[in-house]
């Protein structure tokens, strides 16, 4: 984690919200963009609350106004009407260029300047903010390391000497250079091949885990939205908010047929990648046995516990076999060889992986292991399904941030806005 006190720009017009989260909340209130000569506005009175430190994905068909909405946040496109605040400050009252230096901006293929080296590209914003050379150069190295590029190898290269994925990483590094509270991304991974895209997505999640920025990201790829987003905004024509929810909710309860069409087939399967075995809280105890224990003892214990099968563990508590009790009785001893197709998953695995293992198992479940592969319990299919349903209900009861295009959304948001802190901050 970079020392934020040293990298925070001195002339900051925007600030992070609270500890641990370096992001700032973004609020759009009844924001409209209408182009003269066109009938319907490109963005029709959208209100949207983006909580600090969260990743919000804007998805929708092309031409729905998602990119326009994004670009109004950093005022690359000036809204026709409405209010946009970041961390409580009205962005429309700030100088556009100064505002954009405080907001990270990532576009497809990184948008790197081909005539500048990697270091120059990344150091542009700190340079404009008046950092001295040494501080900028230290920051550049720090960021290249953050995005997984060795500074010594890459800082003096030119963009065309990098692969597409590397260019995109440099683009992210450049956006993060001045440690902005907010990051806007416009189809950031649209120009790279699927495998690189997946790697970059994982990388972004890791970086976000560390930095906790507020990220608004436009994509047309619903799977990407599910993977990266804490929340998803599904937009229809005119940036009409069709649904604003967690990925799990959008997948399990699409607001209408428009959303379900957009989600595409296999929605429930996609949802399984959202849940980890750990989240389920559904591990069950089962009879365990040590290698070499008398079979009669094991069988007796299993019968008493009502288990038809027992897990055999090695000396370090790692599972070796999962055997039926009657099979044990036939063999006469708890044999110590590891079963090759023992259905086992780590507790951090996704439910998707767990179910995959379960379906290949004749026991209707899977052995779950924890740190250093030590046995933790077993998970049965039914438990998994019940847990998913329970989690759904709990999720619905949480309060969710507001989004919509009606007056009510705008009013709710307007009331929620903090008092403009402008005057005293401006004087300082």
């Amino acid at each position, binding site marked *: 984690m970079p020392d934020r006190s040293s990298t925070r720009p001195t002339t900051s017009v925007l600030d992070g919200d609270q500890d641990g989260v370096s992001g700032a909340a973004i609020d759009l209130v009844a924001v409209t963009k209408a182009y003269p000569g066109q009938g319907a506005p490109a963005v029709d009175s959208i209100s949207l609350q983006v909580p600090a430190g969260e990743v919000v994905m804007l998805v929708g068909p092309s031409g729905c106004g998602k990119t326009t909405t994004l670009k109004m946040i*950093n005022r*690359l496109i000036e809204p026709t009407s409405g209010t946009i605040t970041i961390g409580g400050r009205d962005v429309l009252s700030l100088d556009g*260029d*100064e*505002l*954009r*230096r*405080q907001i990270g*901006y990532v*576009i*497809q293929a990184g*948008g*790197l*300047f*081909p*005539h*500048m*080296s990697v270091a120059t590209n990344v150091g*542009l*914003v700190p340079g*404009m903010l008046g950092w001295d050379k040494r501080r900028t150069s230290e920051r550049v190295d720090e960021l290249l390391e953050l995005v997984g590029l060795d500074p010594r190898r890459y800082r003096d290269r*030119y*963009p*065309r*000497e990098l692969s597409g994925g590397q260019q995109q990483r440099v683009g992210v590094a*450049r*956006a993060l250079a001045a440690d902005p509270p907010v990051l*806007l991304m416009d189809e950031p991974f649209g120009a790279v091949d699927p495998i690189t895209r997946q790697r970059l997505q994982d990388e972004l999640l890791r970086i976000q885990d560390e930095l906790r920025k507020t990220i608004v990201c436009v994509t047309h790829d619903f799977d990407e939205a599910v993977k990266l987003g804490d929340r998803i905004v599904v937009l229809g024509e005119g940036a009409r908010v069709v649904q604003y929810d967690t990925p799990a909710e959008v997948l399990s309860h699409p607001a209408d047929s428009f959303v379900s069409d957009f989600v595409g087939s296999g929605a429930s399967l996609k949802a399984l990648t959202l849940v980890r075995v750990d989240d389920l809280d559904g591990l069950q105890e089962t009879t365990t046995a040590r290698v070499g224990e008398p079979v009669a003892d094991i069988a007796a214990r299993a019968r008493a516990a009502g288990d038809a099968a027992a897990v055999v563990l090695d000396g370090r508590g790692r599972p070796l076999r999962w055997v039926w009790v009657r099979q044990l009785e036939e063999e006469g001893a708890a044999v110590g060889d590891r079963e090759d197709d023992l259905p086992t998953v780590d507790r951090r695995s996704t439910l998707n992986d767990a179910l995959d293992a379960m379906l290949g198992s004749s026991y209707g479940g899977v052995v779950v292991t924890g740190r250093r592969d030590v046995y933790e319990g077993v998970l049965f299919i039914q438990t998994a399904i019940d847990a998913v349903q329970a989690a759904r209900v709990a999720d619905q009861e949480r309060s969710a941030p507001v989004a919509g295009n009606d007056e009510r959304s705008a009013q709710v948001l307007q009331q929620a806005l903090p008092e403009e802190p402008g005057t005293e901050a401006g004087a300082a």
Partner: protein
Amino acid sequence: MDLLDFVVERREQIAFQAFQHVSLVVQCVLLATVLGVALGVLCHRRPWARGLASGVSSVGLTLPALALIALVYGATRDGITSAVVAVTFYALLVVWRNAVVGLGGVDGQLLEAAQGIGMGRVRRLVRVQLPLAWPVVLSGVRVATQMTMGIAAIAAFVTGPGLGGLIFTGLARLGGAGALESALTGTLLVVALALVLDLLLVLLGRLTTPRGIRA
């Protein structure tokens, strides 16, 4: 009398005229580059202005150089002024058109990225647009230099400076002693110096084009 004797005999005069010739072209092209880029910056953004630039430069380049020089001389009665005006005029048309093409050819996505990270209009122009358009502008400068080396020779028609003097006096006395040598020397020197200048411009291009966008 053969060519070599002619050159050796008059080496001082020839060297002076060659210097005048190159100096005229270099200074005028420099002026034309500054003006052409400035005009390009002004008019590359609007389609009608781009059309105007290419129209004016196409028509302008068809103007016979001799006619233009004679016209300016008629108005100013000064050979040097006529030469400067004509050379700058033709160089400007070429550089202007290339500047418009070069500046207009910069990827709009990049310019938006520049704006998106907080670069103002002037900074975008100086740090992104001009460096990226530079190779195209420079190739315009090369063409302009080649072309105006020839045009500068015509300036001697109205008593302008440079190697044109050798050519015209030679042609006027054709058949006389040393006349052919005079015209030949002037012509060959113009060609040779144009090649040298072009080489220098290529070198300048190598030095001023960042490694990232070198062809």
